[in-house]
């Protein structure tokens, strides 16, 4: 808490980036972990929670007549624009946040203080939930071609690999050690994925190397150069993309030109092309593939995990995706802490490598809507937690480091918490019978759309106002209830039959079908219809509360039922809206759980 000099500032304005409507006024609080903004509007106290670890940049803009503007950019692409009356307060908040958002030591990260009130045993069970050894067994390893090696016991051969590694059967330790000396950072080729559907031992491999193998020395091997750009290019590309997303009322042309110039979708397509190429080689050409870049913990990981997602339907399940992230990313030494900028450090090490993987997964979900057990929310949740440092999974840069930090004893694992809430992440269209199908994505450029749900996620006005996913979730819930009702009624009928033939007493019948739905009907927000501002219209809008920044907060709030409406509109419009909601309520099962607090 030593960084917080002013824990509470009143009369802070929150500007809406997109519309020119009247800003909200409220109080800003700084806690050890969060920045919390509470609107002081008498009708409701809308809250915005921002986790310090989510803050990627803070800008103090020049003083204006209304106060001192503070712009906060987050790693989950939230952008918040505050205006603080007194410059001194603004400066205090600014310098506190600067410190709070860039911890120096691992031990300062949220995960080390986060306490979900779980006992030690559950904590341990949580960490043991996913087991790499089990995953290799699932793939059918060890087998006649591959076996486990203990060569990296004590991280002696390669300090960025985990200790559980698989190599071709019969490879002697000296050969492995020799290979490791030949490869950058000692990252010798190890098994990434074994495709057991083929009779041949096709598999995808990984390794690292500066330069590439001399073709003369590697007979019966085909080389393919894919050309995924390095982490610096990717970082700059994302930066440009975000600048485009933050443009105030851009024209279509400005947006599309900006999107093109950022190169972001070009990079996404390259990664996808590489993943598809790899999967095709393994599945169709029965080839074994060795994948590497320079160090083998960024591009290689992206491509291998994407190929695995295409090849094996298991990874398209909720649990399987966790396993994939655990196996390909965490245990193989993707440097999460550096790439995500968890601690104060070299900004040049930060790069959206994992974000790109998440986005590629999303594109696959768009192309194959029935092939994934999970939905978009799941991806966003995982993406949030990669940066939140609320759980220990993504802290550190390799397994060795994680062990030294004693993360398993001091922090909690994210996966059991996600599993507990998996009903939120279900894709109702998932067809689990579509197993063993290798996905062959179409990678023509027009398949890659801008992901508004990620990069403009907090600009609710830009998102579709009604969600197909929510509707289907309601239907799934109804289905379960109806099925239960049918069973219950059938039982009663049987009993009734029996009672009629025997004793005569009447069973009370009180079965009602819950017709509620959590689907929220949101009246849209007019965007920039009035460019000339010739007439000022009362901007009657309802908006969803934005409290998605903190996993802790989120676990209670992620469901739609906790979204509450704000009304910054004049009374007449407000009445109109309330009335509209009532009308919606009356219409069969559209009961909106949104609360309008008076």
């Amino acid at each position, binding site marked *: 808490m030593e960084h917080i000099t002013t824990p509470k500032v009143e009369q802070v304005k929150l500007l809406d980036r997109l519309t020119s409507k009247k800003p909200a006024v409220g109080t800003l609080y700084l806690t050890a972990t969060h920045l919390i903004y509470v609107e002081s509007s008498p009708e409701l106290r809308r809250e915005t929670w921002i986790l310090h670890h989510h803050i990627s940049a803070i800008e103090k803009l020049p003083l204006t007549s209304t106060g001192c503007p503070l712009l906060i950019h987050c790693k989950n692409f939230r952008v918040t624009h505050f205006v603080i009356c007194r410059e001194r307060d603004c400066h205090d908040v600014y310098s506190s946040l600067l410190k709070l958002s860039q911890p120096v030591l691992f031990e300062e990260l949220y995960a080390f203080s986060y306490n979900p009130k779980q006992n030690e045993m559950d904590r341990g069970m949580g960490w043991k939930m996913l087991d790499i050894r089990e995953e290799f067994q699932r793939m059918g390893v060890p087998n006649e071609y591959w076996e486990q090696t203990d060569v990296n016991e004590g991280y002696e051969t390669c300090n960025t690999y985990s200790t559980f590694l698989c190599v071709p059967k019969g490879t002697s330790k000296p050969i492995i050690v020799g290979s490791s000396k030949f490869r950058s950072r000692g990252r010798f080729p190890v098994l990434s994925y074994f495709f057991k559907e083929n009779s041949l031992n096709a598999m995808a491999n990984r390794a690292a190397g500066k330069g590439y193998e001399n073709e003369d020395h590697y007979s019966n091997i085909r080389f393919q150069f894919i050309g995924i750009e390095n982490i610096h290019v990717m970082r700059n590309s994302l930066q440009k993309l975000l600048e485009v997303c933050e443009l105030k009322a*851009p024209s*279509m*042309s*400005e947006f*599309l*030109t900006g999107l*093109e110039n950022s190169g972001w*979708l070009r990079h996404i*397509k390259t990664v996808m092309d590489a993943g598809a190429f790899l999967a095709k080689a393994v599945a169709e050409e029965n080839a074994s593939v060795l994948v590497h870049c320079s160090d083998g913990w960024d591009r290689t990981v992206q491509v291998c995990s994407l190929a695995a997602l295409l090849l094996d339907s298991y990874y398209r399940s909720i649990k399987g995706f966790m396993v994939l992230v655990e196996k390909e990313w965490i245990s193989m030494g993707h440097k999460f802490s550096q790439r995500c900028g968890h601690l104060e450090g070299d900004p040049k090490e930060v790069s959206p490598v994992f974000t790109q993987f998440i986005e590629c997964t999303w594109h696959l979900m768009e*192309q*194959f*809507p*029935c092939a994934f057990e999970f939905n978009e929310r799941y991806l966003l949740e995982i993406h949030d937690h990669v940066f939140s440092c609320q759980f220990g999974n993504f802290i550190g840069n390799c397994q060795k480091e994680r062990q030294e930090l004693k993360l398993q004893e001091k922090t909690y694992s994210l996966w059991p918490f996600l599993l507990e809430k998996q009903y939120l992440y279900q894709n109702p*269209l998932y067809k689990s019978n579509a197993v063993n199908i290798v996905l062959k994505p179409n990678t*023509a*450029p*027009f398949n890659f*759309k*801008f992901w*508004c749900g990620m990069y*403009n996620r907090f*600009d609710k006005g830009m998102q*579709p*106002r*009604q969600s*197909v996913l929510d*509707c*289907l979730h309601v239907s*799934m819930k109804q*289905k379960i209830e*109806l099925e239960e*009702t*049918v069973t219950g*009624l*059938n039982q*009663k009928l049987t009993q*009734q039959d029996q*009672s*009629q033939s025997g004793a*005569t007493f*009447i069973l009370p*019948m009180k*079965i009602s*079908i819950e017709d509620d739905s959590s689907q929220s*009907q949101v*009246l*849209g927000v*007019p*965007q920039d*219809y*009035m460019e000339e501002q010739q007439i000022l219209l*009362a901007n*009657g809008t309802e908006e969803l509360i934005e409290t998605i920044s903190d996993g802790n907060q989120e676990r209670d709030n992620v469901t739609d039922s906790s979204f509450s409406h704000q009304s910054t509109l004049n009374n007449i419009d407000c009445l109109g809206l309330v009335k*509209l909601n009532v*009308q*919606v309520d009356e*219409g*069969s*099962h*559209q009961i909106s759980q949104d609360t309008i607090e008076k």
Partner: protein
Amino acid sequence: MEFVELIKTPRVDGAILHRPFQPRVEGTLCLTGHHLILSSRQDNNEELWLLHSNIDAIEKRLVRLELRVIMINLFSLQALSTLDSTTLMYPFFYRPMFEVLEDGWHSFLPEHEFTLLSAMTDEWRLSYINKDFTVCTSYPPIVIVPKSIDDETLKKVATFRQGGRFPVLSYYHKKNGMVMMHSAQPLTGTNGRRCKEDEKLINATLRAGKRGYIIDTRSANAAQQAKTKGGGFEQEAHYPQWRRIHKSIERYHILQESLIKLVEASNDQSHNMDRWLSKLEASSWLTHVKEILTTSCLAAQCIDREGASVLVHGSEGIDSTLQVTSLAHIILDPESRTINGFEALVEREWLQAGHPFQQRCAQSAYSNSKQKNEAPTFLLFLDCCWQMQRQFPCSFEFNEQFLVVLFEHAYASQFGTFLGNNENERRKLKLQQKTVSLWSWINRPKELEKYLNPLYEANSLVIWPSVAPQSLQLWEGVFLRWNRSSKYLDEAWDEIIHIIEYNKDLQAKVNALRRQLAELQTEDGELERP
């Protein structure tokens, strides 16, 4: 002219059809008066029936047949696909193979629409002033005008508006009694001509002390320039109760070129992301979508939020004007988001209102013979509807397929609905007697169910779409339909239908069981009674 004269070789054997994402088909190619037919003559009997009017362009290299045959057939095809006499077109030869349950030609009568309006307000009346199409050639015989304005006044106003298109009622907003009208530009010319009757007419729609908005779909500059050609805009001095807003929406060849560029971009096989985005941007198609939606939102906003009446016009009042008024309908009026309501909207705001379908939809994007009057005005309207459908997936009774079908039939159809450029022409062509209406076909329950949106929940809300570039997307269902397989998307759609239908069945089961139980219990009760 006989079709036989045009068809030199009616039949060619050994033709091969190459299709994307599907196996090729070998068979016999036949040419008839209106169709090109390829039959595989196999057990599975795959056949392709292609309406000549669907053919935009023919390239020799694409038709992989023996060269000699091509040359002859090509000539025939070209002649057949560009028939210039309307009465030779397919709808005049088409005989329905289905039972017409309700004649679509009588489904949407203005009198009926007016009955609905009369239930809400008595400030409007039907005028038959145009029954012989003498006052305005592009208006229908019956129009709705303010009650206080007599036909003599209307005649005078008609001389002051281009093409005689005087302001008529387009939409009445039940919630607050505000209205939207459409017209053509006033003929003020360079000397600033005025027309008292015109002022009287539109002022008659204002409540005491209230202002109205005139939305001009041209830029202020373009409106100014129109004066030199005899057109113009409403001068503030003569229309003090009206505020004019200019919103530039493109029209004619600019839109047609945009469509051609977009289609060209969609067919680009280069696999180059930058090139795709740059071509998408250069086509400006999404810019047009955004402009049209923005202006429509503005019109709707004036009515719903400002509580003001609105008059929309551009120059002729038959293109961008109708895009704006019909989209404002969809934003404001829940009824227009039902299938029947949408059909009524197309009938009233497009067909009756005189959008020249035959000129605008003569050929689509591949046509190499560019005609001056072609423009994808209606397609852009449908695209905007699709954007709204995407943003409000539970607010439309119809699905995307419904919009696609309307797009297809507007360009090439066996039905007479979209033939002709206005009611006047349609009457002369005797379409009602000689052709079948598209609505007769679509509105049969069996056909209609294909277009239902399972997620639809009727709501009375005004739906405000987002017009941010991030929120608008390329309409893949139209522009990429031949370039990518829709197998997985169709599968997802079927699954959605299945989920909803399954619940309906369950609900029915619950109801039946409840009845059964209740019956048993009454029986029981009766047994118990002595």
